[in-house]
């Protein structure tokens, strides 16, 4: 047993073979345990898995793996990047209908030199090879964008427009419940002026599934 949840903390107590321990809590891969004599300390997962259950079975703890990457229902993440020359920060949540198709909702804040804005959209994501460690996807969606010119720009007024987008990207499984995500989206902003605007967006970020 160590004094803290980390590999460098000193070992201050050894639980005897045959002794029972109580698990009080778990933080990351460390277990906070209480020994029979009342001493409390931290042990890591690999040591916990060498203990026995009261019926003599080996203790094992579930650990997310690449199968969960393919089959998990929910996913959420944060991405940042470039939206037509402005900075963009996005948060998303997704739900998988099956391993190949999922629905996502996005909220983004756009911070540019001349204007700021907010964008919300929903989209469908199709993954032809969801069991690949680097899984490519295609996406199609629609939403709204609110644009507010910066206060130092004299002209211009706030406006809200509808948008449509297509895109493609990769979900890359890293470890445990985590994945990296990189994507490109091409937006069409349906403005009230004569011409529609087109905006290109590049983003990278990370997400986790559960």
């Amino acid at each position: 047993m160590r004094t803290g949840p980390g590999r460098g903390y000193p070992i201050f107590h050894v639980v005897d073979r045959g002794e029972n321990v109580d698990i009080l809590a778990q933080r990351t891969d460390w277990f906070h345990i209480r020994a029979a004599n009342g001493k409390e300390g931290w042990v890591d997962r690999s040591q916990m898995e060498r203990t026995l259950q009261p019926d003599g079975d080996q203790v094992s703890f579930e650990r997310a793996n690449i199968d969960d990457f393919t089959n998990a229902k929910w996913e959420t993440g944060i991405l940042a990047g470039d939206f037509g020359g402005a900075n963009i920060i996005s948060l998303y949540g997704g739900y998988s209908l099956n391993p190949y198709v999922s629905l996502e909702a996005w909220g983004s804040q756009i911070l540019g030199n001349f204007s700021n804005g907010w964008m919300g959209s929903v989209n469908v994501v199709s993954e032809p090879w969801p069991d690949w460690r680097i899984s490519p996807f295609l996406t199609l969606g629609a939403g709204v964008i609110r644009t507010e010119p910066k206060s130092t720009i004299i002209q211009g007024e706030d406006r809200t427009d509808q948008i449509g987008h297509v895109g493609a990207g990769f979900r890359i499984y890293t470890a445990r419940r985590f994945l990296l995500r990189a994507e490109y989206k091409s937006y069409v902003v349906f403005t009230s002026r004569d011409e529609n605007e087109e905006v290109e967006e590049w983003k990278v970020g990370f997400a986790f599934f559960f």
Partner: protein
Amino acid sequence: MESRFRVLFLIVAMISLSGCAATKNLFGFGNQSAPPPSSEGPGQVIDPEVERREIKEAAIDREDFEIGVYGGIMSIEDFGTDVSYGVRLAYHITEGFFVEGTAGQSEGGLTSFEELSGGARLITDSQRTLTYYNLNLGYNILPGEVFIGEGRAFNTNLYLIAGLGSTRFAGDDRFTVNVGAGYRFLLTDSIALHLDFRDHLFDIDLLGEEKTAHNLEGHLGFTVFF
């Protein structure tokens, strides 16, 4: 002689009837006269006092999240220094890495230009309120223990953070890069004190030329793991 044999036989008979195992072994009869095996299984000889329990992983209390509040001071470039406060939520991914979201507020004062020029104001009073949010990735670079006196040891972590966010100040939302370092002092296994120093970098063109402003913040915080 005959009576002697008779006495010996009598003793043997008495002992075998008495059922005393220890004395039986004295005469070498131990094996033959051992009690027949009990009809009850060995498991039932002693009633177990402890109920059998299975470890249900879902029942283990997971403490990967950390939530808390903080207060300190923030220096807004050109706008003086004022009190700042905020909230923090962190998720610990491994013993090293964590992700953290913070949201806070401070207040900008008058620039030197505004103070010297008399009545001129660059921004309105409501635009002087600075609010921000940040999403950071953190790493516990120096975990350790500190000692207070002879009998007390506390776990600590020195960590680095870096991330992105947005700051609303002087009428605009500004893309903000956030870097800093902090010290986590665990009072117990699930209650911690924090001392943090952070730099919020954003571009501002309020005083003519556009420049990158460094806005330094130092704060003390309190968090709970759950």
